[in-house]
Protein backbone atom coordinates (compact mmCIF):
# COMPACT_ATOMS: atom_id res chain seq x y z
CA UNK A 1 0.00 0.00 0.00
CA UNK A 2 2.71 2.35 1.01
CA UNK A 3 4.73 1.34 -2.02
CA UNK A 4 1.78 2.00 -4.32
CA UNK A 5 1.41 5.44 -2.81
CA UNK A 6 5.09 6.08 -3.27
CA UNK A 7 4.84 5.02 -6.92
CA UNK A 8 1.85 7.25 -7.48
CA UNK A 9 3.68 10.19 -5.95
CA UNK A 10 6.77 9.44 -7.98
CA UNK A 11 4.82 9.30 -11.23
CA UNK A 12 3.02 12.49 -10.30
CA UNK A 13 6.33 14.19 -9.50
CA UNK A 14 7.89 13.00 -12.76
CA UNK A 15 4.94 14.21 -14.77
CA UNK A 16 5.12 17.63 -13.15
CA UNK A 17 8.72 18.31 -14.20
CA UNK A 18 10.29 17.93 -17.62
CA UNK A 19 12.10 14.64 -18.03
CA UNK A 20 15.89 14.68 -17.67
CA UNK A 21 17.82 14.24 -20.92
CA UNK A 22 20.71 11.94 -21.71
CA UNK A 23 23.68 13.99 -22.86
CA UNK A 24 25.81 12.80 -25.77
CA UNK A 25 29.13 14.08 -24.41
CA UNK A 26 31.43 13.17 -27.32
CA UNK A 27 29.28 15.33 -29.60
CA UNK A 28 28.73 18.13 -27.09
CA UNK A 29 31.13 20.98 -26.45
CA UNK A 30 31.74 23.95 -24.23
CA UNK A 31 34.09 26.34 -25.99
CA UNK A 32 35.16 29.93 -25.56
CA UNK A 33 36.88 32.69 -27.47
CA UNK A 34 39.15 35.15 -25.72
CA UNK A 35 41.05 37.94 -27.39
CA UNK A 36 44.80 38.31 -26.97
CA UNK A 37 46.09 41.56 -28.43
CA UNK A 38 42.84 41.60 -30.42
CA UNK A 39 43.56 38.13 -31.82
CA UNK A 40 40.55 35.84 -31.31
CA UNK A 41 41.88 32.77 -29.50
CA UNK A 42 39.55 29.78 -29.26
CA UNK A 43 39.65 27.28 -26.42
CA UNK A 44 37.48 24.60 -24.86
CA UNK A 45 36.77 22.50 -21.79
CA UNK A 46 37.43 18.83 -22.42
CA UNK A 47 35.50 17.60 -19.37
CA UNK A 48 32.13 18.80 -18.21
CA UNK A 49 28.80 17.40 -17.13
CA UNK A 50 25.35 18.76 -17.80
CA UNK A 51 21.88 18.00 -16.57
CA UNK A 52 19.01 19.25 -18.67
CA UNK A 53 15.32 19.00 -18.11
CA UNK A 54 13.62 20.82 -20.92
CA UNK A 55 10.10 20.90 -22.25
CA UNK A 56 9.02 23.90 -24.32
CA UNK A 57 5.49 23.34 -23.00
CA UNK A 58 6.71 23.39 -19.40
CA UNK A 59 9.28 26.15 -19.27
CA UNK A 60 8.48 26.81 -15.60
CA UNK A 61 9.91 23.44 -14.63
CA UNK A 62 12.64 23.33 -17.27
CA UNK A 63 16.09 23.66 -15.84
CA UNK A 64 19.73 23.02 -16.52
CA UNK A 65 22.98 22.75 -14.66
CA UNK A 66 26.45 22.66 -16.11
CA UNK A 67 29.64 21.73 -14.32
CA UNK A 68 33.00 22.35 -15.94
CA UNK A 69 36.27 20.74 -14.86
CA UNK A 70 38.47 23.83 -14.84
CA UNK A 71 41.59 21.67 -15.07
CA UNK A 72 40.38 20.23 -18.38
CA UNK A 73 40.74 23.58 -20.15
CA UNK A 74 42.47 23.71 -23.51
CA UNK A 75 43.37 27.36 -23.98
CA UNK A 76 44.51 26.91 -27.57
CA UNK A 77 48.20 26.25 -26.99
CA UNK A 78 50.27 24.26 -24.51
CA UNK A 79 51.72 27.47 -23.01
CA UNK A 80 48.29 29.07 -22.79
CA UNK A 81 46.77 26.01 -21.14
CA UNK A 82 49.52 25.84 -18.50
CA UNK A 83 48.92 29.49 -17.76
CA UNK A 84 45.11 29.20 -17.69
CA UNK A 85 45.14 26.40 -15.10
CA UNK A 86 47.46 28.41 -12.87
CA UNK A 87 46.69 30.51 -9.83
CA UNK A 88 46.30 33.83 -11.65
CA UNK A 89 43.65 32.46 -14.01
CA UNK A 90 41.30 29.59 -13.13
CA UNK A 91 43.34 28.28 -10.19
CA UNK A 92 42.16 24.76 -10.97
CA UNK A 93 43.90 23.26 -7.93
CA UNK A 94 41.76 25.30 -5.55
CA UNK A 95 38.64 25.71 -7.73
CA UNK A 96 38.36 22.45 -9.71
CA UNK A 97 34.79 23.17 -10.87
CA UNK A 98 32.97 26.04 -12.49
CA UNK A 99 29.20 25.68 -12.31
CA UNK A 100 26.10 27.13 -13.86
CA UNK A 101 22.68 26.60 -12.28
CA UNK A 102 19.63 27.89 -14.08
CA UNK A 103 17.03 30.02 -12.36
CA UNK A 104 14.63 30.36 -15.25
CA UNK A 105 13.94 29.66 -18.91
CA UNK A 106 11.79 31.79 -21.16
CA UNK A 107 10.73 31.63 -24.78
CA UNK A 108 12.02 34.11 -27.34
CA UNK A 109 9.69 32.71 -30.02
CA UNK A 110 10.06 29.72 -32.33
CA UNK A 111 13.03 27.54 -31.44
CA UNK A 112 14.70 30.38 -29.55
CA UNK A 113 14.82 30.53 -25.78
CA UNK A 114 16.69 32.31 -23.04
CA UNK A 115 18.15 30.76 -19.93
CA UNK A 116 19.09 32.73 -16.84
CA UNK A 117 21.09 31.47 -13.96
CA UNK A 118 23.96 31.77 -11.56
CA UNK A 119 27.49 31.22 -12.79
CA UNK A 120 30.17 30.35 -10.26
CA UNK A 121 33.82 30.56 -11.25
CA UNK A 122 36.73 30.76 -8.85
CA UNK A 123 34.33 31.00 -5.92
CA UNK A 124 32.51 34.06 -7.29
CA UNK A 125 28.86 33.79 -8.28
CA UNK A 126 27.27 36.17 -10.77
CA UNK A 127 24.06 36.10 -12.79
CA UNK A 128 24.26 35.33 -16.51
CA UNK A 129 21.70 35.15 -19.27
CA UNK A 130 22.19 33.19 -22.46
CA UNK A 131 19.98 33.00 -25.53
CA UNK A 132 19.92 29.52 -27.05
CA UNK A 133 18.21 27.53 -29.77
CA UNK A 134 16.78 24.03 -29.63
CA UNK A 135 16.91 22.08 -32.85
CA UNK A 136 16.17 18.49 -33.66
CA UNK A 137 18.86 16.44 -35.35
CA UNK A 138 17.64 12.89 -35.95
CA UNK A 139 16.65 11.53 -32.56
CA UNK A 140 18.73 14.17 -30.79
CA UNK A 141 18.03 17.63 -29.58
CA UNK A 142 20.74 20.23 -30.09
CA UNK A 143 20.95 23.01 -27.53
CA UNK A 144 23.19 25.77 -28.79
CA UNK A 145 23.88 29.16 -27.32
CA UNK A 146 26.46 31.68 -26.24
CA UNK A 147 26.98 34.39 -23.68
CA UNK A 148 29.64 36.89 -22.72
CA UNK A 149 31.38 37.05 -19.39
CA UNK A 150 33.76 39.65 -18.08
CA UNK A 151 36.70 37.59 -16.85
CA UNK A 152 37.86 40.25 -14.37
CA UNK A 153 34.46 40.14 -12.59
CA UNK A 154 35.40 36.59 -11.58
CA UNK A 155 39.02 37.42 -10.84
CA UNK A 156 40.16 35.37 -13.85
CA UNK A 157 43.55 36.83 -14.72
CA UNK A 158 44.78 38.41 -11.50
CA UNK A 159 47.83 40.50 -10.84
CA UNK A 160 49.75 41.51 -13.96
CA UNK A 161 46.98 40.12 -16.17
CA UNK A 162 44.51 42.60 -14.70
CA UNK A 163 44.96 44.55 -17.93
CA UNK A 164 42.26 44.18 -20.58
CA UNK A 165 44.58 45.67 -23.23
CA UNK A 166 46.51 42.41 -23.58
CA UNK A 167 43.84 39.82 -22.87
CA UNK A 168 40.38 41.33 -23.36
CA UNK A 169 37.97 41.40 -20.42
CA UNK A 170 35.12 39.96 -22.50
CA UNK A 171 35.22 36.23 -23.11
CA UNK A 172 32.58 34.60 -25.25
CA UNK A 173 31.43 31.22 -23.95
CA UNK A 174 29.64 28.92 -26.38
CA UNK A 175 27.83 25.70 -25.63
CA UNK A 176 26.49 23.03 -27.94
CA UNK A 177 24.83 20.17 -26.14
CA UNK A 178 23.43 17.12 -27.92
CA UNK A 179 20.89 15.22 -25.91
CA UNK A 180 18.46 12.37 -26.33
CA UNK A 181 15.19 12.29 -24.41
CA UNK A 182 14.85 9.88 -21.49
CA UNK A 183 17.34 7.56 -19.89
Amino acid sequence: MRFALFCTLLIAATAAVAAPLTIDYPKSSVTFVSKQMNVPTPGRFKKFSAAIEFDPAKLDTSKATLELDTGSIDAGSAEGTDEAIGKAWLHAAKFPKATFTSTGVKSLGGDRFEISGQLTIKGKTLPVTAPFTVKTQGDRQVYEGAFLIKRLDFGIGDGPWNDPDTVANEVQVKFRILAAPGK
Partner: protein
Amino acid sequence: MSIPRYTAVAVLFHWLIAVAIGSNFVLGLVMTDMAMSPAKLKYYSYHKWAGVTIFLLVLLRILWRLFHRPPELPAHMKTWERALAGVSHLLLYAATLAVPLTGWLFSSAKGFKTVYFGKWPIPDLLDKNPLLADLLKEAHENLAFLMAALVVLHVAAALKHHFIDRDDILARMVPGLRPRTGG
Protein backbone atom coordinates in the same frame (compact mmCIF):
# COMPACT_ATOMS: atom_id res chain seq x y z
CA MET B 1 82.39 62.45 -59.08
CA SER B 2 82.26 59.51 -61.43
CA ILE B 3 82.05 56.70 -58.92
CA PRO B 4 78.73 54.85 -59.18
CA ARG B 5 76.75 55.22 -55.96
CA TYR B 6 73.53 53.51 -55.00
CA THR B 7 70.51 55.72 -55.52
CA ALA B 8 68.79 57.32 -52.54
CA VAL B 9 65.89 54.87 -52.87
CA ALA B 10 68.25 51.86 -52.81
CA VAL B 11 70.11 53.25 -49.78
CA LEU B 12 66.84 53.97 -47.94
CA PHE B 13 65.45 50.48 -48.63
CA HIS B 14 68.72 48.86 -47.51
CA TRP B 15 69.04 50.65 -44.17
CA LEU B 16 65.34 50.69 -43.33
CA ILE B 17 65.15 46.92 -43.77
CA ALA B 18 68.52 46.36 -42.08
CA VAL B 19 67.51 48.26 -38.94
CA ALA B 20 64.04 46.66 -38.87
CA ILE B 21 65.42 43.14 -39.25
CA GLY B 22 68.15 43.71 -36.65
CA SER B 23 65.62 45.04 -34.12
CA ASN B 24 63.10 42.30 -34.78
CA PHE B 25 65.79 39.62 -34.51
CA VAL B 26 66.75 40.91 -31.05
CA LEU B 27 63.07 41.21 -30.07
CA GLY B 28 62.57 37.59 -31.15
CA LEU B 29 65.45 36.44 -28.92
CA VAL B 30 64.20 38.48 -25.96
CA MET B 31 60.51 37.51 -26.16
CA THR B 32 61.07 33.77 -26.50
CA ASP B 33 63.26 33.87 -23.38
CA MET B 34 60.63 35.66 -21.26
CA ALA B 35 58.33 33.97 -18.75
CA MET B 36 54.63 34.13 -19.61
CA SER B 37 53.36 37.65 -18.94
CA PRO B 38 51.26 40.35 -20.60
CA ALA B 39 54.52 41.94 -21.82
CA LYS B 40 55.48 38.68 -23.52
CA LEU B 41 52.15 38.54 -25.39
CA LYS B 42 52.61 42.18 -26.40
CA TYR B 43 56.15 41.55 -27.66
CA TYR B 44 54.95 38.55 -29.71
CA SER B 45 52.36 40.77 -31.38
CA TYR B 46 54.90 43.54 -32.03
CA HIS B 47 57.29 40.94 -33.47
CA LYS B 48 54.59 39.68 -35.85
CA TRP B 49 53.56 43.18 -36.91
CA ALA B 50 57.20 44.08 -37.56
CA GLY B 51 57.64 40.82 -39.48
CA VAL B 52 54.67 41.60 -41.73
CA THR B 53 56.04 45.12 -42.30
CA ILE B 54 59.49 43.78 -43.19
CA PHE B 55 57.98 41.21 -45.55
CA LEU B 56 56.05 43.96 -47.37
CA LEU B 57 59.14 46.21 -47.50
CA VAL B 58 61.26 43.37 -48.92
CA LEU B 59 58.61 42.66 -51.58
CA LEU B 60 58.55 46.34 -52.53
CA ARG B 61 62.34 46.43 -52.57
CA ILE B 62 62.58 43.38 -54.86
CA LEU B 63 59.93 44.81 -57.15
CA TRP B 64 61.84 48.10 -57.29
CA ARG B 65 65.13 46.29 -57.80
CA LEU B 66 63.76 44.43 -60.86
CA PHE B 67 63.57 47.75 -62.67
CA HIS B 68 66.73 49.37 -61.29
CA ARG B 69 70.19 47.94 -61.87
CA PRO B 70 72.64 48.38 -59.02
CA PRO B 71 75.96 50.12 -59.73
CA GLU B 72 78.73 47.98 -61.24
CA LEU B 73 81.12 46.12 -58.97
CA PRO B 74 84.70 47.47 -58.84
CA ALA B 75 86.89 46.37 -61.75
CA HIS B 76 89.45 44.66 -59.49
CA MET B 77 87.02 41.95 -58.37
CA LYS B 78 87.76 38.47 -59.63
CA THR B 79 85.11 36.28 -61.25
CA TRP B 80 84.74 34.05 -58.18
CA GLU B 81 84.40 37.10 -55.95
CA ARG B 82 81.64 38.45 -58.19
CA ALA B 83 79.91 35.06 -58.15
CA LEU B 84 80.15 34.84 -54.36
CA ALA B 85 78.80 38.38 -53.98
CA GLY B 86 75.90 37.53 -56.30
CA VAL B 87 75.03 34.32 -54.48
CA SER B 88 75.24 35.86 -51.01
CA HIS B 89 73.03 38.78 -52.04
CA LEU B 90 70.51 36.38 -53.55
CA LEU B 91 70.52 34.32 -50.35
CA LEU B 92 70.00 37.48 -48.28
CA TYR B 93 66.96 38.39 -50.34
CA ALA B 94 65.65 34.82 -50.03
CA ALA B 95 66.22 34.76 -46.26
CA THR B 96 64.53 38.13 -45.70
CA LEU B 97 61.44 36.66 -47.37
CA ALA B 98 61.66 33.15 -45.89
CA VAL B 99 62.01 34.26 -42.26
CA PRO B 100 58.78 36.31 -42.10
CA LEU B 101 56.99 33.75 -44.28
CA THR B 102 57.81 30.85 -41.93
CA GLY B 103 56.89 33.07 -38.97
CA TRP B 104 53.46 33.72 -40.48
CA LEU B 105 52.93 30.01 -41.23
CA PHE B 106 54.16 29.07 -37.74
CA SER B 107 51.68 31.44 -36.14
CA SER B 108 48.80 30.00 -38.20
CA ALA B 109 49.77 26.37 -37.49
CA LYS B 110 50.01 27.24 -33.79
CA GLY B 111 46.42 28.46 -33.96
CA PHE B 112 47.10 32.15 -33.58
CA LYS B 113 45.91 34.37 -36.36
CA THR B 114 48.11 37.38 -37.11
CA VAL B 115 46.12 40.59 -36.74
CA TYR B 116 48.26 43.36 -38.24
CA PHE B 117 48.52 46.23 -35.72
CA GLY B 118 45.61 44.59 -33.87
CA LYS B 119 43.30 45.78 -36.65
CA TRP B 120 43.70 43.84 -39.86
CA PRO B 121 43.45 40.04 -39.72
CA ILE B 122 45.84 38.34 -42.12
CA PRO B 123 44.50 35.11 -43.62
CA ASP B 124 45.82 31.82 -42.25
CA LEU B 125 47.42 29.77 -45.01
CA LEU B 126 47.46 26.74 -42.72
CA ASP B 127 44.99 25.22 -40.30
CA LYS B 128 45.95 24.67 -36.69
CA ASN B 129 48.37 21.73 -36.50
CA PRO B 130 50.64 21.38 -33.44
CA LEU B 131 53.12 18.99 -35.12
CA LEU B 132 53.53 21.22 -38.15
CA ALA B 133 53.75 24.22 -35.80
CA ASP B 134 56.80 22.66 -34.10
CA LEU B 135 58.49 22.09 -37.46
CA LEU B 136 57.74 25.63 -38.62
CA LYS B 137 59.05 27.02 -35.34
CA GLU B 138 62.35 25.22 -35.96
CA ALA B 139 62.40 26.46 -39.56
CA HIS B 140 61.65 30.05 -38.52
CA GLU B 141 64.40 30.02 -35.87
CA ASN B 142 67.01 28.27 -37.99
CA LEU B 143 66.35 30.51 -40.99
CA ALA B 144 66.63 33.57 -38.72
CA PHE B 145 70.04 32.38 -37.51
CA LEU B 146 71.08 31.54 -41.08
CA MET B 147 70.06 35.06 -42.07
CA ALA B 148 72.08 36.45 -39.16
CA ALA B 149 75.10 34.46 -40.40
CA LEU B 150 74.60 35.86 -43.90
CA VAL B 151 74.45 39.38 -42.46
CA VAL B 152 77.74 38.78 -40.61
CA LEU B 153 79.29 37.58 -43.90
CA HIS B 154 77.79 40.59 -45.71
CA VAL B 155 79.21 43.06 -43.16
CA ALA B 156 82.58 41.31 -43.12
CA ALA B 157 82.75 41.52 -46.91
CA ALA B 158 81.86 45.22 -46.87
CA LEU B 159 84.60 45.91 -44.29
CA LYS B 160 87.09 43.82 -46.26
CA HIS B 161 86.37 45.92 -49.35
CA HIS B 162 86.74 49.12 -47.36
CA PHE B 163 89.85 48.40 -45.30
CA ILE B 164 91.73 45.81 -47.33
CA ASP B 165 90.74 46.35 -50.95
CA ARG B 166 90.33 50.06 -50.20
CA ASP B 167 87.57 50.39 -52.79
CA ASP B 168 84.24 52.26 -52.66
CA ILE B 169 81.86 49.36 -52.02
CA LEU B 170 81.06 50.51 -48.48
CA ALA B 171 81.09 54.24 -49.20
CA ARG B 172 78.45 53.97 -51.88
CA MET B 173 75.96 52.46 -49.43
CA VAL B 174 76.84 54.43 -46.28
CA PRO B 175 75.52 57.98 -46.45
CA GLY B 176 78.21 60.48 -45.50
CA LEU B 177 81.13 58.10 -45.98
CA ARG B 178 83.55 59.76 -48.40
CA PRO B 179 84.57 57.70 -51.42
CA ARG B 180 88.29 56.95 -51.72
CA THR B 181 88.53 57.30 -55.49
CA GLY B 182 86.84 59.29 -58.17
CA GLY B 183 86.73 63.05 -58.65
